[in-house]
């Protein structure tokens, strides 16, 4: 292993930023793949794989990916929720892997929701 220079230190820091950001918080986007029994049966696993592939490909450092249980709309699974910080979350329904790729490109990277696949914008009311 060659000896490190000061420039190398900065490079390592940058390359490791993704996992550190994961631990330190402060994300631009949070992607939630709904993986209840219904979601998994309808193919949520494939959706998750696409998200992880696209994450690696795009090398985005400010996106958190998480899973959650059934969103309550089992007939419309697979579903994901995408939340840009400071904006209301958008729920996408009846996803396929191709749709997910498009959503990733346009919403996660581009910041513009894909209206065609979206069910609703906003949170449910919780008490």
């Amino acid at each position: 292993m060659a000896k490190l220079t000061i420039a190398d230190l900065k490079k390592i820091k940058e390359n490791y930023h993704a996992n550190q950001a994961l631990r330190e918080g402060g994300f631009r986007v949070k992607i939630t793949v709904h993986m209840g029994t219904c979601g998994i049966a309808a193919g949520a696993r494939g959706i998750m794989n696409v998200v992880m592939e696209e994450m690696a490909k795009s090398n985005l450092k400010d996106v958190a990916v998480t899973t959650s249980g059934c969103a309550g709309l089992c007939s419309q699974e697979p579903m994901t929720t995408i939340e840009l910080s400071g904006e209301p979350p958008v729920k996408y329904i009846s996803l396929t892997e191709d749709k997910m790729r498009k959503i990733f490109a346009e919403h996660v990277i581009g910041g513009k929701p894909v209206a065609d696949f979206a069910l609703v914008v906003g949170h449910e009311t919780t008490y």
Partner: protein
Amino acid sequence: MELDIVETTYRSNIMICAGTGCVANGSLKVKDALETELIKRNLHNEVKIVLTGCNGFCAKGPVIVVYPEDIFYQLVKPEDVPHLVEEHFIKGRPVEKFLYTPPTEKKTIPVMNEIPFFKHQVLRALRNRSLIDAEKMEEYIARDGYLAAAKALTEMTPEQIVNEVKKSGLRGRGGAGFLTGLKWELCARVQGDVKYILCNGDEGDPGAFMDRSVMEADPHSVLEGMIIAAKAINAHYGYIYVRAEYPLAVHRLQLAIDQAKENGLLGKDILGTGYDLDIEIYQGAGAFVCGEETALMASIEGKRGMPRPKPPFPAVKGLWMRPSVLNNVETFANVPPIILNGADWFASLGTEKSKGTKVFALSGALNNIGLVEVPMGTPLKTIIFDIGGGIKNNRKFKAVQMGGPSGGCIPNSLIDTPVDFENINKTGAIMGSGGMVVMDETTCMPAMAKFFLEFTEDESCGKCVPCRIGNKTLLTILTRITNGEGREGDLELLLNLSQQIKDTSLCGLGQTSPNPVLTTIKYFREEYEAHIKEHKCPARVCTPLVKFVVDPNKCKKCGQCFKACPAGALKWEKGQVAYIDPEKCTKCKSCIKACRFWSID
């Protein structure tokens, strides 16, 4: 050792605590179970497992923190892992069963930084706690690691480093609280071709584990601090003195030194700056006195670990009679952020004369035992009740012993004392290296003082008479008091002798060893008098002074003592006052521990 320069992207990181406490509780088995389960569920490319150093909440180990959600899981066992993975990583819901519940409440708190134990803490020396893999240098670098060393080596003169550290107000975290920058300046001014930079990791106070945790969790921060200090005094060789009883700390430090050497962060021409520094670990055999600087240096030289008179001070004639600087582990860990963020940033926290933060090891009768870092000046009450979660089993707070065997106790009446060097000294205790042993009403103060004196008497190196014979005599007097054979005038004798030992001992060990005696007499004199004059131990700890008789006026007839007695000596029936059969009683005190009403005399 290849560095992983490019990091794969994961959606989640599981930080498993691999500090000594959690490892002893089986955290490595939990890690193995997690690895197996993630592979089984095909999640190993999405979820990363990271072994970290001590999380701090040692009482709840094995401890796991999951990011990005910042969920804190406690007391996780290997057999729980499949359930945890299914619920959290597949279904995405925190598992209630392993969440933390505050002692006085019913609702769980899933998010780590909302738990009171963590909420009141400010992490500086422990800045990488639960955030990096202690065995991976890349992760340390990712959190600005070695940038401060780079700055010190390329942009700063030794004088500038000294001035920055002096201006920050950083004081030695080993106990005495000497200004770190001043220590460096004294050594930097001394002419000499060979100088040494030394790190004191000989943490020996019973109940203290701050430095161990830093060495285990963030070894590179210690190395980086040493590089900066070395440049300030122009040293090219250093030792880290660690006790051999800290095998994990030794292992991680050695790993860190090897990684740093291989990648040009130690050794010749650090980071291409032309500066050379080699660091070596020296394992100590665990003598308490070797934490004293001159004894530590004698030990490294291969001699018997005994202190010598000062002056000459180590800054002038230290290791091998060469100018040397010795700082504590936590002090070094504090240095890199000062260089990176500036002295004003560091001094923005703390009190007038004590800047920054301090790490404390909380132990004893508390609900939340563990390692905490708080700003200087935080009241004792906040540390014990908000962070520590108050006293276990609904008992009453009695006193806190600060500074280990060299320190003293602080009673309930002084619970609002802000914790900094000056205010703690005023109470008769010392800041020390950060041990805080909390005691409840079941602690007998003369017996506590005796416990610490047993320790110092045992650890005294024997070189000077006041410490060798004086402490032995203190212990003899304390032993007879706790045996019920105390004599009239014993208290005055204790006070007089203590003062003489303090005034005439050669090193810090003897100069501080009477502190537990002095402070317990100062704040709990009536307890000593009860032992001597009434032959009573109010806390029912000193067995020779306990009668093992139930007081019918106080007995609530609850039968708890009956249930606790392992010898069948207790007679009790519902609605009846209990009775202890002296023939069968083994004086084990199980009944006394079980009785909530102090009705057994």
